[in-house]
């Protein structure tokens, strides 16, 4: 061992506070993204689950579901995409809970870094993971007969809303990750919330045949707005108010959930 090489004067770099909070978030996002590539199970799980659903609904239930003039596969793609994004966000809950259970969060908290960076990192990685999964799901959908009519503008709208929706659900998931007491709980909380939300919506079936109260909920909840908007842009069904409502819901959720998650994270640190 070389003696005394500990104290070599170590100079910190000088930048503004904003620079460093962006840098911290970037460092944490890079960490979480590396986790994706070294933990491929998660990526496949995110993509495989919706593909399984997709094929089940397309070939098992699809024939019995009446979607009018629109073929069921064209009806289904928007719903499957949104469901996939919602389930994918559960990994923010899970990965955050894992970090909190292990000592590494203590290390991060003892560093002079921005306290929201860890959350931003997980949410950012979710977005990357979801994007990759979405491409896989879209690829499969073309194989089984999906025929979108969307032009470049519509595709951009789909992309924009999908990104906002992914961020919104990820921030909500971050709150859940901070509230759950164990990794096991983190694994199922997402499903308990997301399952009913995706099924009580227009994701898989038109809402017309639902009982009235359920139908009211299904038609007005945010997932349906996002699904209806994306479906309209992809296959030309009427978008109506769903477009701006979908965007508004997502932005609203982000604006509320982001500070709440950050506050929870800070408060937990000092319990």
């Amino acid at each position: 061992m070389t003696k005394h090489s500990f104290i070599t004067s170590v100079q910190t770099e000088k930048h503004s506070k904003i620079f460093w909070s962006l840098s911290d978030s970037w460092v944490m996002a890079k960490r979480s993204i590396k986790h994706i590539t070294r933990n491929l199970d998660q990526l496949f799980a995110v993509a495989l689950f919706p593909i399984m659903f997709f094929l089940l609904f397309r070939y098992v239930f699809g024939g019995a579901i009446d979607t009018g003039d629109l073929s069921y596969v064209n009806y289904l793609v928007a719903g499957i995409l949104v469901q996939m994004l919602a389930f994918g966000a559960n990994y923010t809950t899970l990965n955050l809970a894992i970090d909190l259970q292990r000592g590494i969060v203590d290390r991060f908290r003892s560093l002079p870094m921005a306290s929201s960076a860890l959350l931003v990192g997980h949410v950012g990685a979710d977005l990357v993971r979801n994007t990759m999964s979405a491409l896989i799901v879209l690829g499969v959908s073309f194989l089984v007969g999906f025929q979108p009519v969307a032009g470049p503008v519509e595709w951009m709208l789909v992309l924009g809303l999908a990104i906002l929706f992914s961020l919104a659900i990820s921030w909500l998931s971050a709150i859940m990750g901070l509230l759950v007491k164990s990794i096991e709980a983190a694994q199922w909380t997402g499903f308990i919330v997301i399952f009913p939300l995706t099924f009580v919506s227009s994701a898989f079936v038109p809402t017309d045949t639902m009982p009235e109260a359920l139908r009211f909920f299904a038609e007005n909840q945010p997932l349906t707005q996002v699904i209806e908007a994306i479906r309209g842009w992809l296959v030309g069904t009427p978008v109506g108010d769903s477009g701006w409502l979908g965007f508004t819901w997502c932005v609203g959720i982000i604006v509320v959930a982001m500070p709440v998650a950050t506050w929870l994270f800070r408060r937990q640190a000092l319990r």
Partner: protein
Amino acid sequence: MEPTLEAQKSISTDNAIVVKGLRKSFKKLTVLNGIDLCVKRGTVLALLGPNGAGKTTTIRILSTLLLPDGGQALIHSFDVVREASKVRSLIGLTGQYAAVDEYLTGEENLHMIGRLYRLSHQVIKRRTQELLELFDLMEASARTVKTYSGGMRRRLDLAVSLIAAPPIIFLDEPTTGLDPRSRLIMWDIIEQLVAAGTTILLTTQDMDEADRLADKIVVIDGGKIIAEGTSDELKQRVGSERLEITIAEASSFETAKRVVYGDDIHLDSKTRTLSLATKGGVHQLKQVLSRLEEAGVGVENVSFHRPTLDDVFLTLTGHTTEQPNIEIERQEAKK
């Protein structure tokens, strides 16, 4: 970061860490009940105590992870509550469990933490190389931490804490659960750190560790300081050095009892041992041995026995370090 301001403020005091009347309770359980500490720059202070004594809680408050209920703690004159971000740039923390990222490589862990300490990429590169070499992790640097042994993880954990060469380092039971070889490596590194001017606050349940590393030992139990001083000072409180003589044959033990006299003699016929208080002089030793020889008593073994910190702990607290207060331990585990 304003290193110049920090440097100025730091010079204003000889003490790296000053703690006054620190209190912390979890629900109804009082974990810290008024702790006062003072650690001089460039020295090692060991917090010694059983499980649940409040050692980890103290470290967590000092490293800004936990808010105290009362009292004050200053790190280089910065308040750990009000000036937490300044404190964070001065400290390195190595907890009881290796806080490294399993999916990243050793090198990536060092890079990540270096950047979060606001070091430049150039400095990070240089420090990473230095530390990987120093901690004998060069070969494993490109492997994910998942593949590391326990000892390697702990070494990487300490290396990560040192990336920004912080002037103050907190070590929470740095060698608990390590194999003897890794433990020696850790001790060696800690001694080098101190030689290079780092201030260290470490917690331990291990008497040898405190004895070997610490300039000053603070014994805590039930959230209170029950004794403090150098290792020698604490040992003096327990009693003087003792001379222990083991008689070769049980039959001559009675004879030995008659011919050996002195202060505070302890006898143990089972182990054929008699021990007496001594000032450690050769003269007394000679006297005792010649008396035994004259009486025809064979001596199997002679040793000087200095009280260990175990003895200190037993005398001060009425229980050994091995008997944790179960209730407190359960509470601590919960949080």
